[in-house]
């Protein structure tokens, strides 16, 4: 089955992973800007990172016919440095019209601090003024519930935002309902030890339905599995779900959400229906 991974950090992965993903049916992916594992020292470090996301990664993905899209921001962890964050936010508009840039992300909260909230709101303001879509990171473990609720409060406070163009990612059992009830898209991240397993993601599909729901690997430099979306596809099949429902979540939904971005210039894969085969 063809699928799209809507959240994966390919700058942290080797080229062999692109090849493996292509072999497993991945036809497109989107890569939000994130924390590199260390705090960068200057705005020029981010400018180079944005060039990597908009120039080299699409080229590397293209070697395997995978279409690469991206989101730009300074992440919540580095947002503790408010001065640097404002310098980075000022640079982002230089890149927003580049091919494949879908919007602002992954912004959000990490430890739910005042500085993080300050920079989150300034990113929202940039997205509203430039009419960009938004992809949001929600915090880890014990901070997730509180941080997700704070993020929803801030999103709902801003009447300029179209909730159908905002994806709140890394939802789990205790946060998914509030995200969907407020009219936002929700992303489930499949990780080996934290976040969500494929089986629990299937549970949430069964409880909440496929509307405005995405599933991703968030593969990065830490313990993660870039082929987690095919694991989800298999878990759905083993649970007895139809191919059309699976396809809706792993392909149709990402296309629907991303299509709201002016830079989503997507070429669908050629799909051969059974009756076309000889």
């Amino acid at each position, binding site marked *: 089955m063809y699928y799209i991974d809507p959240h994966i950090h390919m700058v942290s992965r080797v080229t062999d992973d692109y090849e493996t993903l292509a072999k497993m049916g991945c036809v497109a992916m989107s890569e939000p800007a994130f924390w590199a594992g260390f705090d960068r020292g200057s705005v020029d470090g981010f400018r180079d990172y944005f060039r990597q996301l908009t120039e080299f990664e699409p080229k590397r993905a293209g070697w395997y016919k995978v279409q690469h899209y991206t989101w730009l921001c300074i992440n919540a962890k580095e947002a503790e440095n408010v001065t640097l964050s404002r310098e980075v936010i000022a640079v982002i508009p230089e890149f927003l019209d580049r091919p494949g840039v879908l919007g602002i992300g992954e912004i959000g909260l990490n430890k739910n601090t005042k500085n993080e909230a300050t920079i989150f709101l300034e990113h929202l303001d940039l997205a509203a003024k430039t009419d960009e879509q938004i992809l949001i990171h929600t915090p880890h473990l014990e901070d997730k519930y509180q941080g997700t609720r704070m993020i929803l*409060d801030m999103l709902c406070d801003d009447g300029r935002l179209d909730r159908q163009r905002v994806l709140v990612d890394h939802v789990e059992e205790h946060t998914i309902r509030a995200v969907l009830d407020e009219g936002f898209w929700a992303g489930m991240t499949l990780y080996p030890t934290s976040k969500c397993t494929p089986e629990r993601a299937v549970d949430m599909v069964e409880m909440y339905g496929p509307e405005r729901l995405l599933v991703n690997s968030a593969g990065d430099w830490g313990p993660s599995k870039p082929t987690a979306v095919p694991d989800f596809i298999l878990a759905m099949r083993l649970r007895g779900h139809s191919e059309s429902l699976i396809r809706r979540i792993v392909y149709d939904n990402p296309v629907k959400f991303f299509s709201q971005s002016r830079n989503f210039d997507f070429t669908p894969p050629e799909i051969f229906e059974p009756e076309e085969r000889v």
Partner: protein
Amino acid sequence: MSTPLPAPELLDREFLEIRARLLHVASSFDRIDRAEGAVEADPRLAKIHEALAILSDGKPDRAERIQLVFSRPYEADWRAALSPRGADPKAR
């Protein structure tokens, strides 16, 4: 939407995995018991026991409720302390 598989079939499929995970938890407790030092006062242990009680209470939404056991609480008036706009969300 519900799960397409009937409950007896789901139990058949998942029994061995549930059994294995229970043994994994039990052996973790045994290991901690055998080790030197005391952890009775560690607040994480209290949360683990609270989660275990949820597992066996027979009520629905166990996963969601256990998630909340391990979560910091949300306070609706968080803006007063943490928002750059203070308590007024409309201030710019």
